[in-house]
């Protein structure tokens, strides 16, 4: 039998054996999870990273635009030739103002102060870094650029070299607990169909956002909020879950292009004066931001577009029109000459976009709509990634309140790196003083819940429930919401929880690669995640940033509050908690 050292693997005696344990288990292998894993290893912890599919080939990091915000003065210290007059304080203030003061200001400060060190580390590791000269929404250039695939490759290889171990195709579905502390994770090995418990002294949730619960989205397939659901069940809180960032001007059709932000990147985002039009041909942004029009901030453009659709002035596919027809064709033809993102052959990411460009050249508008892009709300943490539940940490897009009500470009990259480090260090240090984990008291119960869809001979097809859930989120939690729709959605969701979840059944008995089974577990996770967002949205009765209410007239409540949801027995409960302004208060 192997006896590991503290630097090694821990006592590893067999798969699924309750005697095994790791110092730190990280769930999720995107930028935040792998950064956490590296830092935990550097503290001497044994680290296992668990991922739902292939490590390095899933998660949102790969799809990221690649921006990482860093204050100019920090970049100058690192030797970059940028505007050194841009201070950390400016960066903090920009982030809080753009977040409509809903940010947890301690998290903002931690990100701003901590990001330089992480960037310096990546540069020393030879990662290709570009410097951003002008970043939208920031008062300065403020930032660097590492493409999504480059970043994912870098954090993966760095983690491997650091001695991190991996478990792939393992779908985590519940946290093991003992006397209120988290002692590991239970889940499904998707390859074999085994349901297993993996024990650890600490667990870090780095499972990304919840954007896969929407149909039109920029995000990858797997972000159902598994970590959020596990955190809730273990006693952690979710914060501001109604806050979801939509990226305006994404393609709605055809299917193969749905959710691509291509039109946005050759339009308003690039400063190209394309027009957004409703079915009457009106430039409706005149009603929202007459000065900046289509160049308004993305939360405004998203809300304006969604309002046109809601009020019956949209295009046939449920969007609005983005048009370049008033511009000479040269503007489009010469765009790749000055854009860094495009080559003359109009290939974008994995696609040949020539057919779309031909339509634009021929004078047609393109149908676009806001797509679910980034979860601003999430698991509540402190600056060390601690959730308040002993042994449980979280980092990256899975967490909430750093960005408040709207996120500046590049801040997700900084969040991922800094929160990854904080959670990795804190979990590794906590693991040193924790006693070795004992068997999770809830293991039998979790195993039962995870295996249930495979045991039922007949029942409801999981994908049908998944489609109901995404349809419900898409409609009620759109960029523009109203109380009636939110209330109806909550009723339907609770009906699904009561009547559909207990009936989910796999259609094939083959345990390995059983997609129905994975879908069923994702449905179980999505329900509380969507419920928390609905509760937040219902209770926030006025508009704020990414949360726009169509049924109120914009009067602000006297006190700005966070939406906090937690589990009490079988129920999710909501409470409002005043926002603290430790660094910057809104002007009276």
């Amino acid at each position, binding site marked *: 039998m192997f006896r590991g050292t503290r630097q090694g693997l821990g006592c*590893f005696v067999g*798969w699924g054996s309750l005697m095994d344990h790791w110092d730190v288990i990280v769930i999720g292998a995107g930028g935040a999870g792998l950064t956490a894993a590296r830092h935990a290893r550097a503290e001497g912890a044994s680290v296992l990273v668990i991922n739902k599919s292939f490590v390095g080939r899933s998660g949102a990091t790969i*799809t990221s635009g690649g921006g990482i915000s860093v204050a100019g003065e920090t970049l100058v210290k690192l030797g970059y030739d940028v505007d050194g007059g841009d201070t950390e304080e400016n960066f903090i203030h920009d982030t809080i103002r753009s977040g409509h003061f809903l940010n947890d200001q301690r998290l903002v400060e931690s990100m701003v102060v901590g990001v330089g060190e992480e960037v310096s580390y990546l540069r020393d590791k030879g990662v290709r870094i570009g410097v951003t000269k002008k970043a939208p929404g920031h008062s300065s250039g403020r930032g660097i650029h590492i493409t999504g695939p480059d970043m994912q490759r870098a954090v993966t290889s760095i983690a491997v070299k650091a*001695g991190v171990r991996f478990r792939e195709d393992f779908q985590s579905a519940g946290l093991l607990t003992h006397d209120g502390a988290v002692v590991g994770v239970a889940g499904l090995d998707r390859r074999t169909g085994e349901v297993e418990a993996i024990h650890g002294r600490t667990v870090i949730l780095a499972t990304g956002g919840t954007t896969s619960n929407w149909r039109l989205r920029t995000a990858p397939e797997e972000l159902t909020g598994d970590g959020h659901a596990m955190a809730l069940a273990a006693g952690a809180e979710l914060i501001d879950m109604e806050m979801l960032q939509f990226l305006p001007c994404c393609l*709605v*059709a055809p*299917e193969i292009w749905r959710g691509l932000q291509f039109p946005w990147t050759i339009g308003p985002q690039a400063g190209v004066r394309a027009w957004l039009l409703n079915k009457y041909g009106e430039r409706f942004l005149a009603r929202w931001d007459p000065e900046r029009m289509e160049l308004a901030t993305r939360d405004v453009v998203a809300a304006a577009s969604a309002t046109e659709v809601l009020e019956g002035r949209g295009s046939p596919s449920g969007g609005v029109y983005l048009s370049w027809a008033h511009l000479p064709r040269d503007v489009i033809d010469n765009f790749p000459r000055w854009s860094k993102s495009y080559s003359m052959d109009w290939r974008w*990411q*994995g696609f040949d976009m020539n057919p779309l460009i031909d339509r634009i050249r021929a004078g047609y508008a393109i149908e676009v709509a806001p797509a679910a892009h980034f979860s601003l709300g999430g698991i509540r943490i402190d600056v060390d990634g601690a959730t308040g539940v002993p042994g449980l940490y979280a980092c990256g897009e899975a967490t909430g309140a750093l960005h408040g009500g709207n996120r500046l470009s590049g801040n997700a990259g900084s969040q991922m790196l800094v929160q990854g480090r904080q959670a990795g260090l804190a979990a590794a240090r906590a693991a040193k003083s924790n006693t070795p984990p004992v068997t999770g008291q809830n293991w039998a119960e979790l195993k039962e819940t995870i295996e249930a869809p495979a045991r039922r001979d007949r029942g409801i097809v999981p994908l049908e429930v998944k489609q109901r859930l995404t349809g419900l989120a898409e409609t009620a939690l759109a960029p523009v919401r109203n109380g009636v729709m939110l209330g109806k959605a909550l009723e339907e969701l609770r009906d699904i929880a009561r009547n559909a979840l207990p009936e989910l059944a*796999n259609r094939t008995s083959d345990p390995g690669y059983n997609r129905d089974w994975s879908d069923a577990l994702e449905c179980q996770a999505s329900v509380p995640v969507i419920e928390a967002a609905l509760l937040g949205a219902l209770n926030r009765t006025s508009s704020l940033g990414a949360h726009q209410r169509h049924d109120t007239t914009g009067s602000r409540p006297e006190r700005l509050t966070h939406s906090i949801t937690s589990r009490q027995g079988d129920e999710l409960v909501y409470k409002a908690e005043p926002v603290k302004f430790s660094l910057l208060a809104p002007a009276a």
Partner: protein
Amino acid sequence: MSGAVTIHIRLRRDEDAARLTTFELPEPSVAGISAESWSGASVSTALQYLQRAVDPGLAYSLSCRRGLCDTCAMRIDGVVTTACTVPVHDGMVIEPAKPGIFLRDTIVELSLVRKARIGPEGQQGPVAHD
């Protein structure tokens, strides 16, 4: 023309021999796909539809849907490419990227961390560390 198309997928599960199986895709509106024709939908969308409506055991991988993560790499009409970026056409042939690393149906072993992996299909013993 009805808009229905026929595609061929090499399926292989467990120790079975691989077999090329023919599937009919009804026109997109019937399949619940928002495209005027299947040329507006990707191979990944077709696989999703088939798993949902025809063969619940069909295995495929999909993540980013934009040709970046490569998890959906497979051999399409003889060329290894990403299924999420290739439009469907009548008569197309879909196979695992490489027979030697096949796991199930269209899924192949694409792990980037194989040597550092633990678990039933990874390394079976403790791993030396640095």
